[in-house]
């Protein structure tokens, strides 16, 4: 059906809208005043011919096919600035999340889905946990040897009962291991009793971005179990 035709009433099925209203109880889609505050402050405005307001209109007007096929949902970063400025509190980012989840798994951006799938196994880069442990020990040894003033620095792993559990974005041990050192120095200088976990140490979690609630829940549940099993009182996220 050519795009230049007037709105096709037959296509007003709006099942996507119905599904969002069911899964996001406070979606308030019909409250939209079309004021455009969302679009005027959104860096994704104009990209692929869409913006938060137009996106919401497509949804309200039941243009399900357009909504489901546009890759604008991956340009929108779900940053929720639109919600922050919306006088009616409509959260387009939250809606985008739901629509991402409606994509069949094999039609989602491959690397994004892969990062989540790897996270479910070990961490988002997929390096074995043993490698993480090895890298930490290796870098630690280097610091102790090369910087005499930090000879007593530590980077404990799986220390049961440590007060703080710390995570590290998987990119750091994987591609820029020296970026772990400043953290160790700060914690050491502050005299903090902390530990990594060899079972869950990646601070990133891309399962939030695939739109798949089951995957997101599974990964957060797993990390909560790991930290509780260590018996740490505080969980520090570094980013």
């Amino acid at each position: 059906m050519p795009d230049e035709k007037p709105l096709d009433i037959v296509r007003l099925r709006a099942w996507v809208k119905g599904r969002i209203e069911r899964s996001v109880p406070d979606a308030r889609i019909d409250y939209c005043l079309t004021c455009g505050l969302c679009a005027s402050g959104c860096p994704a405005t104009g990209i692929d011919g869409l913006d938060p307001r137009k996106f919401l209109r497509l949804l309200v007007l039941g243009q399900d096919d357009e909504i489901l096929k546009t890759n604008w949902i991956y340009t929108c970063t779900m940053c929720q600035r639109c919600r922050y400025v919306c006088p009616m509190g409509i959260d387009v980012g939250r809606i985008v999340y739901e629509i991402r989840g409606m994509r069949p798994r094999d039609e989602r951006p491959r690397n994004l889905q892969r990062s989540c799938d790897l996270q479910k196994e070990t961490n988002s880069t997929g390096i074995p946990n043993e490698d993480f442990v090895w890298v930490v020990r290796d870098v630690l040894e280097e610091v102790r040897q090369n910087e005499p003033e930090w000879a007593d620095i530590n980077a404990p792993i799986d220390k049961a009962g440590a007060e703080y559990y710390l995570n590290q974005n998987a990119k750091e041990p994987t591609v820029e291991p020296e970026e772990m050192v400043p953290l160790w120095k700060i914690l050491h200088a502050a005299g903090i009793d902390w530990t990594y976990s060899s079972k869950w140490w990646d601070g990133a979690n891309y399962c939030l971005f695939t739109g798949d609630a089951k995957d997101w829940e599974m990964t957060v549940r797993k990390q909560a179990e790991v930290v509780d099993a260590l018996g740490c009182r505080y969980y520090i996220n570094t980013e």
Partner: protein
Amino acid sequence: MFYATLEGLRRFNISHRFEFLSIISLYAKWIREGRLKVDSSWNKDGLKFTVQDPCKLVRQGLGDAVADDLRFVVKQVAGEANFIEVWPNRSNNYCCGGGGGALQSGFAKNRREYGKVKFEQLKKTGADVVITPCHNCHTQIKDICDFYGGGWQTTHLWNWIVRALKR
């Protein structure tokens, strides 16, 4: 990132015995308590700093309180006079364009077009250093700086804390 865990624990009602914290708030707390001793005397040349407010930590996470902690730490570390504010800022700041999995999704042209807003905003500050506490922001802000020709250094916060550390 912060929000994935914070909101995940909340939305799925996951029971846990720990308290979930951002390291930014802890840096600020430890500096305020005198537990972490820093000063800005190293910054003799008056290197100018600005910050990125990560959406997932600030607007979607702990709000303006953590954005204020971030500024407090940067000012302690780099010197009050060497901090330049971005506009808009804190909870009202723009996303860098790398968040939400955009760096993994593969639509690089769109991502950079999105990042143009962040680039212009940061360029306007004239800062030499952009502090990015989030790894995603770090990668994206470094990329748009290279792509559009920014000339600033994109760095994590921890490097500068160590630089300013007094033991």
